[in-house]
Each structure stands twice: as C-alpha cells, then as structure tokens.
C-alpha cells in the first residue's frame, strides 16, 4: 500500500496531476453548472476503483489517509484542472461525521458504500421558515416503538433528487432551548412517505430540491450522536470545509472567461474597462493570498480562527462583481440567456450572473457571516 504521506509534496502533486489528466473527462472540465450524478458518476467510480475517492479518510475506512498538506495539494490540482464537483455529501460531510461519531454498526453499514458510490447522500437541513435561523427548524420526529416517525418539509437540499440517502435534522423536543431539541437522523431516501421535488431556479436549472416527510418511519438506530444532540453534530461538520466555501476557484475561473471575452471583443481598448478588470484581478489575487493563509494553517495541523468566514464573503462578492462586469462588457448581449455570439466566440454570459446570486446566500448568508465576524473576531457587542 502506498504511503502517500511519505512522499515529497512535489512528487505527490505530480502523481495527483497525472491521475486527473489521465482520467478526468475532457468535456467536463470547468463546468459552468453543477454536474448531476449521471454526468459525473463515471469519474466517481474511476476514483473509487483507483483508491483515490476518499483522500482525507483514514486508511482503515477505505481512504488514503492523506495529511492535511497533501489533501490541499489534491484539491489544488483538481481546481487547476477544472474538475467538476461530484455529489460529495457522503465523502465530505456525512462520511467524516459517521467516522467521528457513528456506532461500529453504522460505520460498517454506510462507509463502504460511500466509497463505492453505491450510496449517494443528500443533506436536509433548511426549512421554509428556518433559513439563516436554522435552529428554529420544525420538522418533527416522534418516537414510536423502535422507530421515529418524521413529518415536515425540508428545502434547498442540493441535488437531493440524485440521493439514495439523506441526513436530516429533526426536532425531537419542543420544550427546550431551540438548539437543544434537535436530532441528527440518517434516512434511506426510498422510505415510504418521502417526496423529493426539484425546485426550478431563475437560472433555469433544478439543482435544489424540496423534500417532504409524511409519516416517514426511520429506525431509532439511525440517530447519530444521541437524541437531542443533533445541533452539536451539525456543528462538528464545520471543520476545515469552511475554507472551501471561500475557495478562489469560482471567481478565478470567471475572471479567466471574462479576460477571454474581453480580448475577443476588444474591451481592453477601453481604459475604463481595463481599470475595472485590473481591480477584479487584484481582488482575486489577494483572495488567493488570504486563502493561502488559512490553507497554510490547515497544512500545519493548526486550528482555523473564526475569521476564516472572510473568505466566503470576499470570494462570493468578488465573483458577483466579475459577473456584473461581464454583463456590462457584453453590452446588448448582456441580457441574453444561454450561449450567444461575442466577437466570434460563444459564451453563456448570464450563467455567472445568475449563480452569483445564491453564492452570497447559501452556506450561511453573507449577512450571517458578517454577524459572526462582528462578534467572534471584532468582539463587537451582541
């Protein structure tokens, strides 16, 4: 078995790069939309067979056991090549949670099937009336013998229509502080009473879903972390994944597209456009510098300070500014849906402008991030 961590960083980087170049489908590079399971599953299976699917997991659970520094190299190489994101809630969210908090039976039951791709997981957290204020969720689970009976509605479950399994936050006690009556449940998506309905977005796709629970019976054994301990479980998931919400990937890619377009249509002849572009280029460059500050902490095994929230704010708002300049530079073509002609190249101008909208909303809206920074970093009063 390869001891990846014994390699030099550079050696590992070369191997990772070659693996991606040899296996990742050319036509899926830099996808402009989130890929569905049907589109990306072959890449998932390829990684799985090669043993690369869970680089951060311990070896005993089928992972590569990469040290944080190596893991970041792996992420960087994927980003540089434009590797699309597969439905990865199993790998990045629920798998690590089960490894950390699951029973031996849960580990045996679920982990191998995440590795093989047999199970595809979806997250059910938000509700129509519990968005930024997640802890006020109301989907209810009542114990009935050795099952919980779940009733309620979840929303904004990314790609839940592709999921075989769902992890769900439910209310199991209404008579305590709202954070203390929440339980974390694992649910087979095929259980009777579950309806998954994709939500059409203004961008014309359906990557988000509503999930309805109507007397859904879930074995009580499917609780993780203990009854009424679900809020704590959900919070342990906020590990260094928080960094990746602020990855420079998206703004960097969008800036590259903007640069190509601008070259084609001669926008750089205009000093005003050039200055705006330069500002954005510096915004992305400095985002990269800030990102590196935190990946460096992870690489060394340190703990992330709360101000890592800055990354998400700056990354998503820079992305939004780039999308705006793209629309502006496109002039009359700035209001067109789908691919259109721009100085001889075909480009979908509006995609970035659309996706810049939820970017500043999901993963904790930028307003909530600023609240956190205000309190945790600047120590401003509640």
């Amino acid at each position, binding site marked *: 078995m390869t001891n990846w961590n014994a390699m030099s960083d550079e050696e590992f980087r070369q191997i990772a790069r070659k693996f991606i170049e040899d296996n990742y489908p050319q036509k899926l590079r830099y996808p402009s939309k989130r890929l569905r399971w049907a589109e990306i599953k072959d890449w998932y299976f390829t990684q799985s067979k090669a043993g690369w699917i869970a680089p951060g997991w311990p070896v005993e659970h089928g992972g590569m056991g990469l040290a944080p520094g190596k893991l970041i190299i792996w992420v960087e190489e994927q980003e540089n090549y434009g590797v699309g994101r597969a439905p990865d809630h199993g790998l990045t969210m629920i798998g690590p949670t089960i490894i950390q908090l699951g029973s031996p039976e849960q580990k045996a039951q679920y982990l191998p099937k995440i590795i093989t791709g047999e199970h595809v997981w979806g997250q059910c957290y*938000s509700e*129509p*009336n519990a*968005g*930024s*204020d997640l802890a*006020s969720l109301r989907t209810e689970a009542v114990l009935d013998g050795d099952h919980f009976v779940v009733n309620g509605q979840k*929303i*904004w479950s990314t790609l839940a229509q592709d999921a075989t399994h769902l992890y769900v936050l439910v209310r199991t006690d209404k008579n305590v502080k709202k954070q203390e009556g929440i339980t974390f449940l694992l649910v087979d998506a095929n259980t009777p009473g579950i309806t998954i309905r994709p*939500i*059409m*977005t*203004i*961008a*014309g796709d359906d990557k*988000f879903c509503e999930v309805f629970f109507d007397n859904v019976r879930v074995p009580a054994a499917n609780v993780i972390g203990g009854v009424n301990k679900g809020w704590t479980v959900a919070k342990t998931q906020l590990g260094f994944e928080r960094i990746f919400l602020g990855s420079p990937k998206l703004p960097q890619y969008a800036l590259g597209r903007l640069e190509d377009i601008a070259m084609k*249509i001669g926008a750089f002849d205009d000093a*005003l456009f050039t200055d705006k572009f330069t500002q954005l280029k510096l915004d992305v460059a400095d985002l990269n510098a800030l990102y590196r500050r935190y990946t460096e902490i992870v690489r060394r095994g340190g703990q992330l300070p709360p101000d890592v929230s800055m990354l998400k704010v700056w990354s998503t708002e820079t992305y*939004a500014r780039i999308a*705006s300049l793209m*629309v*502006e530079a*496109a*002039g*009359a*073509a*700035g*209001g*067109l*849906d*789908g691919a*259109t002609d*721009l*100085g001889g190249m075909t480009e979908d101008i*509006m995609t970035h*402008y659309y996706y810049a*909208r*939820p970017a*500043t*909303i*999901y993963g904790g*809206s930028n*307003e909530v991030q*600023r609240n956190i920074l205000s309190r945790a970093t600047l120590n401003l009063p509640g």
Partner: protein
Amino acid sequence: MMSTPAAQVAEDPAEEQRRMLRESALAFAANELKPARMRTLRLQPVQFDRKLWKTMAEMGWTGLMLPEAHGGSALGIADMSAVVEELSRALLPEPLVASAVFAGNLIAHGDNDALKAKLLPALVAGDLIPAVAFQEGLKIDSPVQSRAEAAGKDFVLNGVKSYVRPGAGADGFVVSAKCGDGLGLFWIPAGTTGAELKLERSTDGTDIGTLTLKNVKVGADNVVASAKVGAAAFDRAFNEALIAGSAELLGLMRGALDMTTNYLRTRVQFGKPIGSFQALQHRAVDLYLQQELTAAALVEVARLFEEGGSGDQLNALASRIKARASDAAMQIAREAIQMHGAIGFTDEYDVGFYFKRIVALSAWLGNSAEHRRRYAACSGIGKKT
C-alpha cells in the same frame, strides 16, 4: 405654516392630465397584469399577448405620442413615461416602448407621409407591431455597416442587425442603413424575401432577433426616412425610447422594491421580522434613494426634453436618465434577490421576473457605462474652455 398636504395643492392642467393617465394605467394593471402571465407567455412562440395589445391600443397608449393626423394623441414623453412606468411596475412584456415609442415615433419623425398614413393608424389601432433594427455590434456606438444601394427609385439592402426587440411577434422592421453619405431608414415587413430573422432568448423570457439582410429590395414607398433626415429622426426617436425605457425600468424598480420591503416586513428569522435588522434597513434605504433619484431625474429630463434644445443637449438628457435608471435598477434587482434569500432564486417566486426584466432592459438600448460615455461626449465634459 405649511400644513397643507402636497396632494391638496392645486395642480396645473398638464399635471392633472398626467395623473389621470397614471390612474388609468394603474387600474388597467390591477385588472389585466398578473406575474403568472409571464410563466405562460414565455412558453409560447410570441411572448406577449396580441389581444392585450389591442386592449392597450383601445386605451390610447399605442398612439399616445403619435400625430393626431394619424389617430394619435400627440402627447409628450412625460405623459408616455407615466403610463409606461405604471404598467411596467406590474410586469408588462408587451412592447410598448419598443414598438409604440421607438418604432412608432421613428416612423412619425420620417419624411414619408404616405407610409405614415399606412403604418401609423394600424399602430394606433393595435394592429401593427413594428420593431427597430438598428444595432450592429455589442455597443450602441458600434458603427452602422449595413448599406442601402440605390437601384432606380428603389433600394437594395445588405447587412446584419442584432438585438432587435421585439424579435418574435414583430410585423416589420424599421432598418437603418448607410445611404450615400447619410443614414436612411427603411420599412421591411416581416417575411420579406432576403430578410432572415434569427431568434435568441432574452433573459426576460422574450425572444429578440438578429435580422440578416441579403439583397433585400425596398421600394421607394417603404423608405421611412431619406438620408437627408434619417440620422436626425433616428436620434430623436432613440432618445425618446431611452426616456420611456428608463420609465419602464423605474416601474420595475418600484415593483421589485415593493415586493422586497414587503418581504422584509413579514419574513421572520431569529424571532423578528428581518426588516428590523439595521444592516438590511440601511441597504433598503439606499435602494429607495436610487429609485427616487431616478424618479426625480425622469421628471426633470422629460420636462427639459420637451422644452427642446440642440441635438447634443437632447442626447445628453436621454443618456443621463438611461445611465441612472440602468444602474439603479441593476442594484435594486441584485439586492431584491439577496434580501429575499434563497426563495428569491426560485422560479416560482415572482421577484425573479423583475430581476430578469431589469437585466434585459438595462442592457437594451445601451447600458449605464455606454450612456455615461455618450453623456460625457454630448455634454462636452473635459472640453470646457
């Protein structure tokens, strides 16, 4: 000392007329315009309703600015803007600005009386939907390359015109083309041999067109404006469309901001309406300020435009308001989605229609950057002596 409410203050007759126009548009909007229409119309080959258009014509709106000789009301851009604003506020995909203001006025500003007598009464009656095909590059200042070559008394046109609104549903096109040393304007009915229309979907759910002209023959009777008057006629109608288009954007701002402040008042998170959070309050105030700056500037620009002036002065006025309206509307559109949170990004919630229509109309006829540049050029910024 100053306790009389503004509404009780005596109006002048022009204001009273404008208020009445506004009220009839409001009443019409309340009865006829529902956001749900947008979901149905966008699935159809023509994304507006010709029956409704006919009703609008009966209200007098398609001919509001057209000469009385051809059945119009000969009112000014301020009156037209009032109607457009109120209808747009309730989401109107019908091409009132594109067809009635831009194309209609362009025909009226031309020098072919016989053609006016043929086209304008049909437009007034709601039986004709004309479009203007003028743009040839991404920017409004991209030079016109299309050419009209004289062939006896007729002309032969070649060229490509893009971003024509409306595309789907237009009965014909007023096309600009180089004609000798000047700019001629020509009427080309839809389906004319050699005139091929390709449609693209605008983000607002309507189809706009690219019109390719290959040796299209235009008879002398279909010359909207000769090369002598074409450029001036075009500038005037373009400026009128910019002002009315700004009114359309203002209506959209009002609609989007109303929805948003209403949501802020009612959506509860953390045990309070989110509109009680000061950061959102201050941002909402900034949006309101942009909206009201647009409204105040629109009143002033329309008034000064009607008073007249040099070509440069009128161009500067029209570009001033389009720059403000486009910027203000885009800011309001983005913030409307952000303040709604995830729900605002769903197709089933109506605020997205405002967002999309604003993006489309901010770009149409030139975005804010283009119009600041035009304003600077026409108002002599940096040329003071």
